[in-house]
């Protein structure tokens, strides 16, 4: 699904140029669950943003499901992202002014799906995430765990091929964290590819493969034997 070759990303300020990613090569197969780890500032989130097409690499190639992404314009990236990718963020990133239902509905609106179909899909996903009883609430009225379940609902409501999770349990207590990881695992078992950035060793054990980044380069890669060990 994802093939990255010789990917580089540098940031330039007035005085210095920082190389955030340096010749990264990575392949992610359909249905894989990959965890990216590493110390702060190693380039994890930068890599995830490039995979999520929120950012463009400075150099190198990125192929997503047969499409070359590097060099695409923002509008083209948006088009490719729509319906194919779902995002789960550490800080949930729900729109405060929209209810649970409306937040989850939003990607479907951008896909120009009709109202009744939207309603059906949102209801189904909220039921599945066990948050349907809160559909009329606003994000501030929910606990962190509930908010992240809403965020996951929003990420999966379009049935994306790939979910990108950026420290999805970072703002949650352990109980809620486990719930979220179980949800992601469940989705992965149903065929959704997941790429997750995490600091947590425990969370990384849910992944099939763990990639370690350091100073913008992949330094180690390891396969997990006991998938879902913490379930």
């Amino acid at each position, binding site marked *: 699904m994802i093939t990255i070759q010789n990917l580089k990303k540098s940031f330039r300020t007035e005085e210095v140029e920082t190389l955030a990613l340096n010749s990264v090569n990575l392949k992610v197969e359909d249905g894989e669950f990959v965890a990216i780890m590493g110390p702060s500032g190693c380039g994890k989130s930068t890599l995830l*943003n490039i995979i999520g097409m929120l950012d463009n690499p400075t150099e190198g190639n990125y192929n997503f499901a047969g499409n070359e992404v590097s060099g695409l314009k*923002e509008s083209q990236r948006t088009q490719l992202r729509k319906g194919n990718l779902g995002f789960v963020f550490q800080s949930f990133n729900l729109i405060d002014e*929209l209810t649970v239902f*409306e937040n989850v509905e939003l990607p479907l609106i951008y896909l120009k799906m009709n109202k009744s179909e939207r309603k059906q899909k949102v209801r189904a996903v909220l039921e599945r995430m066990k948050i349907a009883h809160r559909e009329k609430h606003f994000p501030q009225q929910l606990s962190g765990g509930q908010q992240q379940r809403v965020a996951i609902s929003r990420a999966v409501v379009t049935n994306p091929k790939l979910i990108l999770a950026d420290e999805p349990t970072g703002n949650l207590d352990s109980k809620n964290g486990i719930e979220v990881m179980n949800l992601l695992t469940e989705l992965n078992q149903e065929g959704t590819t997941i790429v997750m950035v995490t600091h947590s060793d425990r969370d990384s054990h849910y992944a099939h493969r763990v990639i370690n980044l350091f100073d913008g380069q992949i330094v180690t890669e390891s396969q997990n034997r006991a998938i879902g060990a913490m379930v």
Partner: protein
Amino acid sequence: MLKNYFKIAWRNLLKNKVYSSINIGGLALGIAVTLIISLWIQDELTHNDYYQSKATIAQIYQSQTFNNQTSTGPAIPRPLEKALRDGYMDNFKHLVMSSWNNSQYLNYKEISISKSGNFMQAEAPELLDLKILKGEKDGLREINSIMLSESIAEALFGSEEPIGKIIKVNSEFDMMVTAVYEDIPFNNSFNDLEFIMPWEKYITTREWVQNAIDSWGNNSFQMFVQIPDNTTMERVTETVRNVKKDLNEDTAEFNPQLFLFPMEDWYLRSNFENGQQVGGRIKYVWLFAVIGIFVLLLACINFMNLSTARSEKRSKEVGIRKSIGSQRRQLINQFLSESFLVVLFAFVIAVVIVLLSLSGFNDLARKEIAFPWSSISFWGISLGLILFTALLAGSYPALYLSSFRPVDVLKGTFKAGKYAGTPRKILVVVQFTVSVAFIIGTVVVMQQINHAKNRPVGYNKEGLIQIPTFSDDFTGKYELMRSEFIGSNAVVEMSTSSSPTTEVWSNRGGYSWEGKPEGFQEDFAWTTVSPEYAKSLGLKIIAGRDFSREFASDSSAVLINETALKYMGLTNPIGTLIKDDSEEDPDPPLKIIGVVQDMIVQSPYEPIKQGVYEFDKYGLGSYYNLRLNPKQSVGQNLAIVERVFKDHFPSIPFQYDFVDEQYGAKFASEERVGNLSGIFTALAILISCLGLFGLTSFVAEQRTKEIGVRKVLGASVFNVWNMLSKDFLKLITISCFIAVPIAYYVMNGWLQDYPYHIIISWWVFALAMLGAMGVTAITVSFQAIKAARANPIKSLRTE
């Protein structure tokens, strides 16, 4: 999708009540000002729209040149009518001679009213396309007929049938009502045409009019025409331009040029300078249009500034929307929808503001504007205004907000760039530049009005009243009335004059005197007066003597004013003879017996005109001038004067004017402009300050942590106030320096329209600058001090 946009917009409005109030309130004020100004402009531009043939109606105007100065006006000589009818009638559809609009007394049974109207030729109702409610359109055919406006007919006859009724005019002649026409609405010429009598009646009842039949030099009449559809005003003007010059040698030296002055220009472009049409009220239409646009712009700037200032708050939403599939175009649409919603709300509030203030505005602007509920064009234009404002106010925030990169905002590392605040600063500078320029403009207008008001008027206008004496009932009764009024103790002196104290009704030339330069073409303001004129007005005699009843020879005497003294080039004026050049004049020459102080009679903004006051030997005065007894109250005096008046003229309504009020009316137009621009300036400043208030509260909120840290480190309230205020004060200072030269240039140009005008002094600019600084300091301080006094522990905890 649209529903989603509006939902978010609505919830955002509710969530941020202060910002929403400032945004919507400011815009509502701006739109209300724009709407009111638009209604005013609409009213100005539709003046005379009552006349369906407006485009083909004109008045014949005449330009004449005296001593290289060309003056232009509507007064024409009587023989012109015959000349045009005989040789040029194929250029006209209708041609109507008319007297000037004058008050007359109309009597029916016990009812007596004084109303204004004209003597006009029979085609007048056709030319003006009067809407006849009763009777016939050709109601002026019979010499003793009169056509009445609806309200006059009602005042005289109530529910009785008016047609065929006989009314007495000026106790002079009986006229039969032949038609009643619809009242001519307020914003139209001839609005004061409350009755029309036949032109022939005018001729037969006035000897001087009969005598004027061949007098090309007597410009005492007016003429209205309508041209056929197959020609143009310009073409007809070219045909008739030299008719007078060609037919009359005596007046040819003044190069009389005739032209058609179209009805479409009567109201807005009626000023002439040295023979050239130079605009008129249209300059106020432009002025207020500019004010309206600027006030709306100020309100839009608030919207732009507050929206972009709050960008960090909205950035997260932009990031999320982009990450889940929103195109930039969709975000732009979303923000424009929000701006549309805000503007729509503001418009509804603006309409309420307009409805509440329209009556006050009408009083101030002397208008009768009604809210155009049923006007499709109004609502169409309003929709256009809403869309335009939404685009103007919303486009910059929409483009700015939608440009955020989702990576930055979602990572939480989004910070507005170093120069992100620059457009906001520029917009604040624009706002205050406009406001400061408005302040300067208003102060200059007010100063100019006061300057003219404080100009020495030359006579004592307090406690002086004038009573019109148009009726024949007054003929030969002056001496009697003078002794009655003075004997009543309510009046200390009295005189008559041929025109009101604040106007000149007659201008004359064609005289010679010893020492008159060769080729000099004189033009005097001419008033015939009774001997007590100077005394009753409090006019000072500065050379020679006043008229005296002791000297029989004073019946051929004149007084001249100081300007006339210089104008005629006389060094020893007393005893100088002024001779009428016309050969047939049977009267002896007029002798100058005294020089009176200059008095302002016409425009207080213009130089005083050379004036001659001729002894009224025929008792032709049109006004009694009464100096009330200063030792009694005005009320007491008036009650006595009315009683004496009614004793002698029971059938004539007692009507009088205070001269000081009549004089004050000369400032009405400028005062209206001054008052309106004062109000609009105040609103402009209020709107700008609202925006500034919002921006300061935003900056204070944004810098809460910084303020906390500074306070912990020892900053005083003053230090924090200074930190928050100085940036804004700097911007206002820049505004002042931009506004001052612009305002000086514009206002100095405006003042040039007035020969008697002020020189703009430096303190006007200093005052405007200080005012702007003061208002800014107060606005900013409110938030700055609030932030500075907050407990730093609290503010640090907000992190």
